[in-house]
């Protein structure tokens, strides 16, 4: 074992456990999830169910193969959380096998082969998302405009089953590009942003999530609230989300100030795509992010910079999954250079000098 991955003694037990932590994160995700299901209707619900079931099944098989207690391993909620995060990052009307393959891949290849919960190098959900995006680019980039539950354009339950489990051909009236994809297309045709963005994007609508996008990434406000609640309950620390968001904000502001026709404004970057979800729920995964606070800041800056670089100059319109997976790969290196201070020692590792007590005491 690498000693750098342990926090140092003395340990104080906070009565926290993996199931409690996972439960809090799931609870914080719940509003955004419900909103996504309402926004995109039955197909989104079906996809969510299939993805979570595939993750639970994969986890059960992995635990059984490893000879561990299936019941305990399933009850810790980590597979459930992985399934939720993966489903939230998928296009809401994707066919069922996208969720099934992705869920099984996330748990078996992303976590099981490394030794189970707590041993994985990469964030399982994001690894699966990268795999799906590379393997099935058509299904993974078919976005649709909001079709809220009970509205006229929403599919009924049976039509929802048809979308998820049957053959469904995307039609132009139903689908629409995400704002990041739209910007990429328009820039590719040498259209200035001042012409192409208005009419397709309003920050207020983007903030409440009334846009096309992945299942659970559109409602920035709800995700932000969930993230702040997690911070308040100390389920996550502030370093990674703040560093990630500030990096994107600074880069986007700088480039937008230099050339507003080529680079989208910082608010658009903050409120579109899955940046909020990534910053609060995905990059903060305690297993795959650095231990030391300084290291977490470096990790967050790396994620933010990669996201901006991929969005602006990369081959894909959105890069949260790639950024997080790449920084996961760099986490052991960050942990090596930014270690937590050992209790009772200086940053250099020497014993702290004992202060002389005054004579009166």
């Amino acid at each position, binding site marked *: 074992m690498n000693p750098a991955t342990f926090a140092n003694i003395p340990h104080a037990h906070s009565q926290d456990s993996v199931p409690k932590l996972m439960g809090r994160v799931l609870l914080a995700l719940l509003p955004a999830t419900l909103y996504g299901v309402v926004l995109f209707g039955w197909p989104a619900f079906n996809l969510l169910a299939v993805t979570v079931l595939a993750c639970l099944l994969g986890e059960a098989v992995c635990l059984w193969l490893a000879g561990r207690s299936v019941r305990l391993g399933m009850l810790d909620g980590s597979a459930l959380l992985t399934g939720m995060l993966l489903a939230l990052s998928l296009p809401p009307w994707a066919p069922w096998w996208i969720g099934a393959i992705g869920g099984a891949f996330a748990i078996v*290849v992303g976590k099981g*082969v490394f030794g189970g919960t707590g041993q994985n190098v990469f964030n399982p959900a994001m690894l699966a998302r990268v*795999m799906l995006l*590379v*393997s*099935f*680019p*058509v299904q993974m980039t078919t976005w649709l405009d909001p079709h809220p539950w009970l509205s006229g354009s929403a599919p009924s339950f049976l039509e929802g089953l048809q979308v998820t489990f049957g053959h469904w051909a995307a039609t132009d009236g139903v689908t629409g590009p995400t704002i990041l994809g739209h910007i990429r297309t328009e820039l590719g045709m040498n259209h200035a942003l001042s012409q192409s963005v208005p009419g397709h994007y309003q920050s207020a609508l983007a903030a409440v999530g009334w846009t096309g996008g992945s299942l659970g990434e559109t409602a920035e406000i709800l995700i932000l609230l969930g993230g702040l609640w997690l911070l308040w309950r100390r389920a996550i620390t502030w370093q990674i989300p703040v560093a990630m968001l500030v990096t994107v904000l600074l880069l986007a502001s700088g480039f937008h100030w230099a050339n507003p026709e080529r680079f989208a404004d910082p608010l658009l970057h903050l409120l579109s795509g899955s940046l909020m979800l990534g910053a609060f729920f995905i990059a903060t995964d305690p297993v795959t992010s650095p231990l030391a606070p300084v290291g977490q800041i470096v990790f967050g800056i790396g994620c933010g910079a990669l996201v901006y670089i991929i969005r602006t100059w990369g081959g894909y319109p959105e890069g949260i999954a790639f950024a997080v997976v790449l920084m996961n790969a760099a986490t052991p290196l960050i942990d090596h250079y930014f270690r937590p201070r050992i209790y009772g020692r200086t940053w250099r590792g020497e014993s702290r000098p004992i202060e002389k007590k005054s004579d009166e005491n």
Partner: protein
Amino acid sequence: MNDYRRIFADGLWGNNVVFVQMLALCPLMAVTTTATNGLGMGLATTWVLLSANIVIASLRHWIAPEVRIPVFVLLIASLVTLADMAINAWLHELYKVLGLFIPLIVVNCCVLGRAEAFASRQPVLASAADGLAMGLGLTLALVLIGACREVLGSATLFAQASLLLGQSFAFLEIVLIQDYSGFLLMLLPPGGFLVLGFLLAGRRLLERPRP
């Protein structure tokens, strides 16, 4: 006789080039996108292994130990060049697919490894048996991995086998699912690593001592 049986058992399974020695992984990742490519690459390497082992075993008393590695490489390179030209002449379609990887058999570590570990200190006949066994073991591994990747990646099996083996083997070409949209990852290098990893895990499961 027992000795030869052990040589073949080692080459095909117990000391398999890919699954146990973990050699020859570079061409493995590169060419095994279909079972046919794996078969072609495996047979070409088998030929090189067999002839290299025979030549080196018969010359082993005249090769000074101080310069043996350069001499081995020189001999192997000549044999690979022969194989390269032969495939280009008679199996030109396969040559277009395998292309660069045929000349690269020169630096395939399993060929030099067998020359150094076996052929340079064993009689000719045993070396020939070892080269053949190791080559067939490598072919087995390449075909197995190629088949897994091909089935998962494009839902076919032994596509274009008739180009390699002639029209009479066209029956090998199987299309499992029509209109398969493709699982691109399996045809890219990560798919090779994933399939190899799962096959290694499966082999360990088979070899696990039973309680």
